[in-house]
């Protein structure tokens, strides 16, 4: 009953167009007034502030800031040049370059939108000059950007880990194999399509060209190594890794590539702060919801309801995947994560599903939602960059979406893909 009021209120307010953070607050307020009328309303303010007041969550702001600096400071450009010398000569040349550059950039930025903005701005015009249809290039940049939050660092994984009190480090490392798998299979799909349509390939410049590009890019390429190495080696926490990445990207952009202007630096700070606020306001509101779910034992109600349908972990994961793919069509992935994960977690625990495995599955699933209409932010972003109608981009993205869903299925039913690396490195 409480679950119905809470979720019903949330859906109603959201569909009316109330910003999600306030839709969550409104639904909580209504539930409170019906079921706990004697409680003081100060609780709302208290839990909003407590929901934001967390050291690990600061990583979100820092990784967003690092991503902005990477784009403003010419780091993206060097990574693309390096990728071009490595895989540009394969059939479908620049398509492979897009995927490889996206993988490397994923190791610096934790957000798919930052990833798409980075590769899209460079690769779409370059591929157009090389004779690729713009809609194809846009679709490829869009789907390759999904790796951004799968290959560490990852903003949605930070949020998930905080929500379920899991280790951020384990989540990050769990994303490595699925992310790399995505990249390799996307390249395979680029190759198949390119063979069929006869897309161009570049020429192999020899190891000397690779070495030259590597030297030019080495400062940029070191960023993912520093971030991941630092976290894996226990040198610093995830939040600290974010700050180090910002300082490193800033220094490289100013002193090595000499490309970062004061104005761009300032714009990076403002964009990162605003991006953080958009997400964190919802996280804060969900602080109220999290407390209420526990207080009114809504999670038990939800778990009992879910477990009355099935007690098989495979069936549960399948149903959850289908549910989130549908939700992802209409809702922002981070918002969906924050709203639904606390409700689902008791059932996940009851079925003895590993929370790290579940988290990686959910994050991959919801990130695919960024590429599915009608609410797929990346579609419109890339259609805009390529100056193509969204429908054309959607049509071209179908084979790549197929690849992503295939990886999602593999990761869902083979837990070792997620869990082997964290167990090996972090125990």
């Amino acid at each position, binding site marked *: 009953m409480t679950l119905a009021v809470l979720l019903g209120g949330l859906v109603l307010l*959201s*569909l*009316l*167009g*109330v*910003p*999600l*953070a*306030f*839709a969550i*607050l409104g639904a909580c*307020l209504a539930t409170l007034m019906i079921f706990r009328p004697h409680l003081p*309303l*100060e*609780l*709302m*303010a*208290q839990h*909003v*502030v407590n929901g*934001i*007041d*967390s*050291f690990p*969550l*600061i990583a979100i*702001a*820092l990784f967003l*800031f690092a991503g902005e600096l990477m784009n403003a400071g010419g780091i993206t450009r060097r990574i693309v040049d390096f990728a071009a010398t490595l895989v540009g000569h394969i059939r479908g040349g620049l398509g492979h370059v897009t995927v490889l550059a996206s993988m490397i950039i994923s190791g610096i930025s934790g*957000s798919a*939108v930052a990833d798409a903005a980075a590769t899209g701005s460079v690769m779409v015009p370059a591929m157009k000059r090389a004779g690729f249809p713009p809609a194809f290039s846009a679709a490829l940049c869009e789907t390759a950007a999904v790796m951004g939050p799968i290959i560490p660092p990852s*903003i949605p994984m930070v949020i998930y880990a905080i929500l379920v009190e899991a280790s951020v480090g384990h989540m990050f490392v769990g994303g490595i194999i699925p992310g790399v798998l995505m990249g390799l299979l996307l390249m395979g799909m680029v190759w198949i399509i390119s063979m069929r349509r006869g897309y161009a390939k570049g020429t192999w410049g020899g190891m000397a060209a690779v070495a030259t590009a590597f030297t030019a890019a080495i400062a940029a390429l070191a960023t993912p190594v520093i971030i991941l190495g630092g976290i894996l080696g226990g*040198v*610093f926490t995830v*939040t*600290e890794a974010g*700050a*180090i990445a*910002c300082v490193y990207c800033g220094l490289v952009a100013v002193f090595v590539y000499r490309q970062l202007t004061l104005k761009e630096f*300032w714009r990076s*700070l*403002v*964009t*990162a*702060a*605003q*991006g*953080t*606020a*958009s*997400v*964190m*306001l*919802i996280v*804060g509101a969900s602080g109220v919801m999290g407390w209420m779910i526990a207080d009114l034992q809504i999670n038990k109600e939800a778990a009992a309801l879910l477990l009355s349908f099935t007690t098989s972990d495979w069936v549960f994961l399948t149903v959850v995947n289908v549910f989130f793919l549908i939700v992802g069509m*209409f809702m*922002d992935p*981070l918002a969906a994560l924050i709203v639904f994960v606390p409700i689902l977690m008791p059932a996940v625990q009851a079925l003895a599903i590993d929370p790290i495995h579940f988290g990686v599955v959910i994050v991959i699933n919801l990130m695919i939602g960024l590429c599915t209409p*009608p*609410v797929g932010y990346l579609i419109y972003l890339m259609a805009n960059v390529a100056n193509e109608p969204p429908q054309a981009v959607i049509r071209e993205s179908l084979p790549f979406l197929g690849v992503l869903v295939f990886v999602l299925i593999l990761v869902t039913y083979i837990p070792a893909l997620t869990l082997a690396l964290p167990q090996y490195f972090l125990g």
Partner: protein
Amino acid sequence: MNHPQPATQNESAEQTLLFRLPDLLAAVLLFVITFLVTAQVLVRYALGGSLVWSEELTRLLFVWMVLVAAITAPRMQVDFLVDLLPPRLRAFQRILVEFVVMGLTIVLIQGAWGMMDLRQFDTYIALGISVSWIYLSLFLAGFAWLLRSLATVVAHWRTLTGLT
């Protein structure tokens, strides 16, 4: 990171001026946060010590940064349904939504005031300052959120009456 759609379509000159100040403050706060977290690592490895107050201060500044940046930040919302509405109905819907937002903001402002009152004698262990400082961010930012909502209402009211 997500959905940088324009918050209000009718952004006027006075609004941009109003928007500059929170952006400035949020940017400075993020800069200081980056600095503090980096300093924490450097002090630990270079000097072998630790800045005991730095984590508390960073978290306090982060809450301020989020709530202040939220004054101007685009708000994530589900708008594929309301986008289908004709312009006048859409303006009406936006006004309605802003009243819901303002109502909830007032609940938060009142709550923040209550919490400041309740916790004024509790102090941060390392910083030594009152815990009320953290709730002050919500209290002050809340008033700015109200201003933003009012500006949106006025803008859409103009659309609504302008088209009549």
